Every structure is written in C-alpha cells, then in structure tokens.
C-alpha cells in the first residue's frame, strides 16, 4: 500500500481522472439497480404486501390474474391454512368533475373482504365501511395530490368512488391499487363482462404452513394453486424487465472491470522501466504486484463508495414519480462485486510485472 498510496498522492490528476471514471460507472450501475428494483417493486409491491405463500387462479388463465375469473363461492372448496378472496380489475380513474387527459390515472381495483388477511393497513384516513368507498395507494396523494374525501370517476362507467383512506406500498403493474369491497368490485368488473347472477372473483390468496404449498388443495380441476414467486415472475412484462435491467447491470459491471483493468495495465506498461529498476534492486515481483493490486483496490474502493454516496443522495432528491428505490442488500452486493471485478481486472497487469526483465533496466 505504501507505493500504491504514494503514487496516487504524487500523480493526483491522473488518478483523480481514473477515480472519476470509476465514480461515474459505479453511479450508473447503482442508479440502474435502484431503478430496476424500484420498477420491479412497483409491479409486485401489493403482492408482497399480502405475505402470502400461494395464489389460486383459474386453470385456463395461464397465470394471468386479469384473465382469471370464477365464482366467489368456490372459496369454500379450497383447503388452506388461511385464504382470502380477491377480485382484480383495471380501470382508469379521474378526480370527479375533471375531464382533461393529464388527470387520468391507470389504477387497479382489488376487491377484498374486510375480515380476510390481505386487507391493507391504513396509514391515513380510515377503512372502507360502505359501497363505493376505497382505500388508495399513498402515491395518489404524493404524486397526484389527491386527499381523503376526494371522489374519483371511473372511465367508461357511471360510477364514482370516494377515497376514505390511504395505504402504503400498494402498487400493481406500476400503478396504484384501490382497495374496495366485493360488491363495489362486482359493479366495476360488470362493466367489462356484463351483469352476473353470482359474485365473481379473480383469485384466492392463500397462506400455507407446509413447504411448497403441499397442504393447499383446490378440490377442483378448473382451479390451480401457484406459489407467490411463480405468480410474480409471470406478471406481464415482469421477467422481461428484470432480465433487461439485470443484463445491463451485469454488462456494466464487466465494463467497469475492463476499464479499470485497462487503465492499470497502461499505467503498468508506462512504469515498466521503473519497475525493471526496482526488480534489479532485488524488489520481488510479488511486492510490486501487491502494490498494483492494492492500488486498484484503493482506486475502486474510493470510486465505488463515492458513486454509492452520490446514488443515495440522488435517491433523496428524486421526485416521487421516479420509480427509484434502494435495496441495501443489492447495493452492498454491487459494491462488493464492482470492487472484486476491478481487482480481478488488475490481475492482467500482474503478468506484465512478472515478465519485466530487470536486465533491461541496466542496458
């Protein structure tokens, strides 16, 4: 570290530039990670909120909850530790009395029973107690400026609902969720499928005490139980999005390794005559190689942590509409990964160090 640190102190500009590049790459990687995580959370947050183990869907729905539909009465045939009926319907909501395009919001209605476990915790206002009352995701307040008591009109139907409370972390398919009771849900759903005699729902969310949902039994051929993770990875567009971001982040980490590796390699080549002299003086290749590796570690350490700091700072300053979210496990993993691959990149140069012939220092 002695040589590594002295050299950084001596050639400040040169190393500041290298650190600058590392900072930018780290910043980009961290920021993309935050965005990827935030986006994926907005797809699945309301599902994670259930803390459920599995979900029962109509067999022919192909794991698409929007296409799943069966009578609510069938819940009695399902065997599980805990179960909750859920109706899902997407809609477009708009503050009542307004009709400009900008005020329209894509929402998802969750029709639920008050007594069942997927009922959300209300952080502001109160729980719904009558028809046409909804508990909305807090983003409607933070991003759209709505408040408890506001009426929303729904596109394509003669129906308004009133926000009576807000809950947190209730997003589904990157849009806010409105929780309502089953009878209101039936009305909203009916506008798409026509009036029905019996109540219909989209899914039954279950909790199970045994592994892999072994104790959950649907008792029907036309209903299937899926694990929550399987359900999430089959959300429309979810996997495509996660894989796209994952690929980008992976490549960026590799590029970071290559850039640092190349920088260090060029620096090592530049210094090769000096390193030759050092070897002539009997300083071992191992000592010089350690200095090179140590220097890379210092550079990437400073760069990555500065990038991390900048990312966290940016996260604080971003408007709520940007789906950025920190996940400290991911951030820690990427920090470690970036430093490890950077140091691995420096191992290119170790070969160069070993191959330097001290004889050339003399001739």
């Amino acid at each position, binding site marked *: 570290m*002695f*040589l590594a640190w*002295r*050299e950084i*102190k*001596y*050639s400040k500009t040169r190393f500041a530039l290298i650190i600058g590049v590392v900072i930018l790459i780290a910043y980009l990687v961290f920021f993309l990670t935050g965005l990827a995580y935030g986006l994926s959370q907005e797809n699945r947050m309301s599902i994670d909120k259930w803390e459920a183990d599995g979900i029962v869907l109509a067999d022919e729905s192909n794991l698409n909850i929007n296409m799943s539909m069966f009578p609510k009465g069938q819940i009695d045939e399902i065997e599980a530790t805990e179960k909750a009926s859920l109706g899902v319907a997407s809609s477009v909501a708009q503050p009542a009395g307004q009709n400009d395009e900008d005020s329209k919001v894509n929402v998802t209605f969750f029709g639920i029973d008050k007594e069942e476990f997927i009922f959300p915790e209300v952080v502001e206002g109160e729980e719904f107690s009558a028809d046409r009352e909804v508990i909305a995701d807090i983003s409607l307040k933070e991003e759209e400026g709505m408040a408890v008591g506001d009426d929303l009109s729904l596109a394509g139907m003669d129906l308004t609902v009133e926000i009576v409370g807000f809950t947190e972390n209730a997003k589904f398919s990157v849009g806010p969720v409105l929780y309502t009771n089953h009878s209101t849900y039936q009305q909203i759903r009916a506008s798409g499928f026509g009036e029905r005699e019996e109540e219909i729902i989209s899914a039954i969310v279950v909790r199970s005490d045994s592994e892999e949902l072994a104790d959950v039994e649907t008792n029907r051929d036309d209903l299937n139980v899926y694990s929550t993770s399987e359900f999430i990875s089959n959300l429309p567009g979810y996997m495509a999005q996660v894989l796209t971001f994952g690929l980008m982040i992976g490549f960026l980490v590799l590029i970071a390794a290559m850039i640092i590796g190349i920088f260090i390699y060029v620096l090592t080549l530049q210094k090769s*005559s*000096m390193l030759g*002299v*050092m*070897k*002539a*003086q*009997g*300083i*071992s290749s191992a*000592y010089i190689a350690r200095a090179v590796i140590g220097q890379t570690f210092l550079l990437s350490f400073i760069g990555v942590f500065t990038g991390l700091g900048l990312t966290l700072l940016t996260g604080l300053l971003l408007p709520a509409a940007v789906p950025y979210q920190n996940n400290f496990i991911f951030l820690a993993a990427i920090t470690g990964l970036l430093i490890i691959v950077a140091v691995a990149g420096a191992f290119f140069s170790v070969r160069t160090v070993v191959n330097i012939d*001290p*004889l050339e*220092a*003399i*001739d």
Partner: protein
Amino acid sequence: MKLIELKDVKKTFQDGRKMIEALKPTNFSVEQGEFVAVIGPSGSGKSTFLTIIGGLQTPTEGKVFIREDKFSELDEKDRAKKRFNEIGFILQASNLIPFLTVKDQLKLVNKIEKSKLDEAKVENLLSELGIDHLMDKYPSDLSGGEKQRAAIARAMYHNPTVILADEPTASLDTDRAFEVVEILARETKKEKKATIMVTHDERLTDYCDAVYTMKDGVLTKNHKK
C-alpha cells in the same frame, strides 16, 4: 576478504546463427574496502559483466561468489532476495522512483522488510552525502548530481556488501561527476564495501584502487599510473 569473486566466468549469446562471446572466461575479485573501476567502450561487455555480478543474469560457465557464497547457482527468486540484501545498485539516472521523496526512497526498503524507518541513520547518511535538506523533495526537483547522491544513499541505506555502479556519472558535468565518484570512494572505504564502477570516462579512475579495461569481452587489469 574477497567480497566479490568470479571464477572462470563466461557468457555467450546466441545471435541468429552466430554465437557471441560477450564475456570471455574471466577470473576477477574485489576485496573488502576496495573500489574498482571497469572502463571500456559501449558494447565491450562491461554491462554483461556487471549484470552477471549483480545476478541479473547467470553465467554460461563458471561461478560468481558474493561474500564467498555461491551466488550464480541460486534460483531467480533467491538471487533477487540476495540482491536486495547484499547488493546496492546505482544506475545511470532512472534509479529513483519518481513518486517517492528522497526519504521515502529509503523508507521503501523498510516497507519491504517490514521494519521501522531508522530516522537517525537516514539523517546521518543524507547529511554525509550533503542532501539532508532535500529529504522531502521528489526526484524531479533534484539536479543530476543530487539525484545520483540520493541514488547512492538508496544503495547504501540497506548496508549492502557490494555496490555496483553502472555509469553513475553519465548525465553529470565534470565537476559533479568527480564529486559523485569521490563520495563513492569515500563510502566504500568508510563502510568497508566492495564497489565496482563501470564507466567509459577514464578521468574518473583517480579515486579507484584498481582499474580494469574491458575490450571485446576480455577483462585486463591496468597498471597503476
């Protein structure tokens, strides 16, 4: 005691289809406290001679002894270790590490050995060489003569058995060159080292105990004037 001894040392190179004898079979030794100069034109084999003594390459035939230990028969790693411990190199100009201050050049030795910097020794050595006021300067701030003194300090600091100087005065004017050689001669006597200086400048040999001439790989001892 003979600190450096070469017995029937010979070095040949393959150059295309020709074999070149860079160093003809040579017997040579330097006693403790002896300052020896080797002069000769470039390409005469004097660098080969010096690098074989320094263990940077091995002789094709014959043996090199440092402090009566077989040096040329050690493997590369052990030779590097012995070089670090026993041999002080002073090279033309690029001897110093550009990003270390004069003091840090010496401190590097401690860092490698994982020992403590000997402040008193550093002070003594640098003031003896007249560069104690330059302790915190980088090589780029030093003049040619000061650089070579720093290089001598670097070579002496580790208390080597042998000092090998390869054209230590190449980049200096006459006055500075004489100063540097005088310092080398003085330190050799005082610290009881064995010093070999390779140079092409015959005027510098006044301070030397013995002068050899290298020509076409043949080393011959000059008669003292």
